[in-house]
């Protein structure tokens, strides 16, 4: 077996864990949800962020940029994001390769983009405006999808490569999303990994999903399944040991649970052993 490089590990920071992380001797990389802080100037959130910043690497991750909006990115949102980023000084600033809103309507969701040359132009324009406003590069995450537009002419890999090459942005590779799309649309996750240029990936996400009737839903409330760990293993070999962030938004999850899940990932990266991982359900196996 080829040795996989050991990445730095991290978790998505949630307010319910603020105090638990405070008393941990060692902190993982912490990913901060930008949108939660765009309006905040003080309070418990910033109190803890400033303390964590002295002890670990922080990365910022957003959901509201809507970089794929054909109507353009919103200047007011960019101003709020810039204030946040300037204050936090995170190592990576990321959002999703999707659209969420038009000028008249915000879905607060990550909606799929049509992958065509015209959309590519729009996204590159939006990414450039964003990077100019922030004064730094951003990373874009591939999203889970449940429908596909007619008229897609570019693969996910081609689309991401083209955006990175034309704007200088990076990729936040969400391995679970690759797997969800593989099951939902038959798009090969490994094929997408092969298509992506190795220099573009700056960070990874791993997460769990829910197995539904005939499709997977990217719910972030389950343990990471073995298939996703395996895709991460391939990605680490191809793109190198960028930070791996575990996302888990389940209500009852504790810091101990998150640490245990990270240990599963570390064990797998080190030895290839997945015995501690969440076993795939039968239905999931049959659709993959």
């Amino acid at each position, binding site marked *: 077996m080829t040795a996989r490089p050991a990445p730095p590990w991290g978790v998505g920071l949630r307010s319910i864990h603020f105090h638990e992380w405070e008393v941990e001797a060692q902190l993982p990389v912490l990913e901060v949800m930008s949108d939660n802080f765009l309006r905040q100037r003080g309070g*418990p959130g*910033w*109190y803890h962020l400033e303390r964590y910043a002295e002890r670990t690497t922080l990365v910022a991750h957003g959901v509201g940029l809507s970089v794929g909006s054909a*109507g353009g990115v919103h200047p007011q949102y960019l101003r709020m994001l810039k204030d946040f980023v300037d204050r936090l000084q995170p190592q990576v600033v990321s959002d999703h390769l999707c659209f969420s809103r038009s000028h008249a309507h915000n*879905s*607060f969701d990550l909606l799929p983009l*049509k992958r065509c040359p015209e959309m590519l132009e729009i996204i590159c324009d939006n990414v450039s405006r964003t990077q100019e406003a922030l004064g730094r590069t951003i990373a874009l995450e591939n999203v889970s999808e449940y429908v*596909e*537009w007619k008229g897609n002419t570019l693969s996910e890999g081609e689309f991401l490569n083209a955006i990175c090459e034309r704007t200088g942005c990076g990729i936040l590779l969400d391995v679970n999303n690759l797997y969800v799309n593989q099951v939902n649309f038959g798009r090969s996750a490994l094929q997408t990994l092969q298509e992506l240029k190795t220099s573009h990936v700056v960070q990874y996400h791993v997460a769990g999903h829910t197995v539904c009737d005939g499709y997977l839903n990217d719910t972030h409330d389950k343990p990471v399944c073995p298939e996703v760990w395996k895709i991460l293993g391939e990605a680490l070999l191809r793109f190198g040991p960028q930070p791996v962030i575990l996302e888990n938004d389940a209500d009852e999850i504790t810091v101990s649970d998150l640490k245990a899940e990270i240990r599963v990932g570390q064990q797998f990266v080190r030895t290839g052993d997945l015995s501690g991982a969440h076993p795939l359900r039968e239905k999931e196996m049959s659709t993959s």
Partner: protein
Amino acid sequence: MTEAKLEKERQATQLSESRAYLQAQQELFLHNLLPTNAREVLPECQWGEPAPIQDQLEKDTSQLFFVYQDAYVARLSGVLASTLLERASTLVGQERMEQLLLEFTLRKKSSEHLLADVLLEFPEWLAKQEGVEDYLPDVVDTCLKFWALITGPDPEERFPAAPDLNCRLGAHCLFKESRFPLADLWKLSGQEPTESEGQQGRFIEPVSQGLLIVKTTAQSTNTLTVPALLFPLAQALFAGESLERSLEALHVECSKLAGEQEGITQALQDFIAALQQSGALQQPRSSTTSETVFQKQSPQGKAPQAGERATP
């Protein structure tokens, strides 16, 4: 015009056209996020009838469009009910709060940048609805203002000092008066109902009450109950008036009442002491007056002079 320039113009026109086309497609996608059954039960819905999105999607995937519709509903009801409005939800039940949020949020398209901003008009809307618990608009409004207070700028560290007449309410305070026992409700709202309360509903004494919340540090607040008698004082303080001016405001209002002197004096003493202990009162930077309220006590030592002036 050169060939190159013409080509550039042609490309620009093409881009603008494709942008408009893609924009229309995205609008259509957004327009279809309102679940079909919601349209049927929302007569005041502002969404209108959408063109079908299925024509724009690959046939074998369009059947999963409901995943986006479900997520939209869950985000605008479940997420808000369990986060920003958590305290209000414990009073009326999570399910009921989600239902109310759903009725409110699905009527209009949300255009705000942040999810929290969707709720700005929610208290006003609640107040107009029939069958909604009378106190709920005030509690919801307090939830929103509390969030703004907590996440706003932190106060500088300071220690309670004897209040003088030039004192003002610090910037890190929230005052809300209500026809309902808001302070009692607020304290109750952090707790899940007991089994019997869950079955019979919570008994809430119908008295007017105000709530004053003081943000003392990044992570802590003090909560004060404001009796209805002292609303004029709290209003004036919250509007930025000095303690002296606020006491005058109270005096004017109290002069309209008869037979309440004893109650007001005691309530006033208690309230000013609570303001002092909670760190709500701040000395103005330029203040040179050191005369404190309680230095001016009457020979009997019962009531502060300012308080005496306020009584009819």
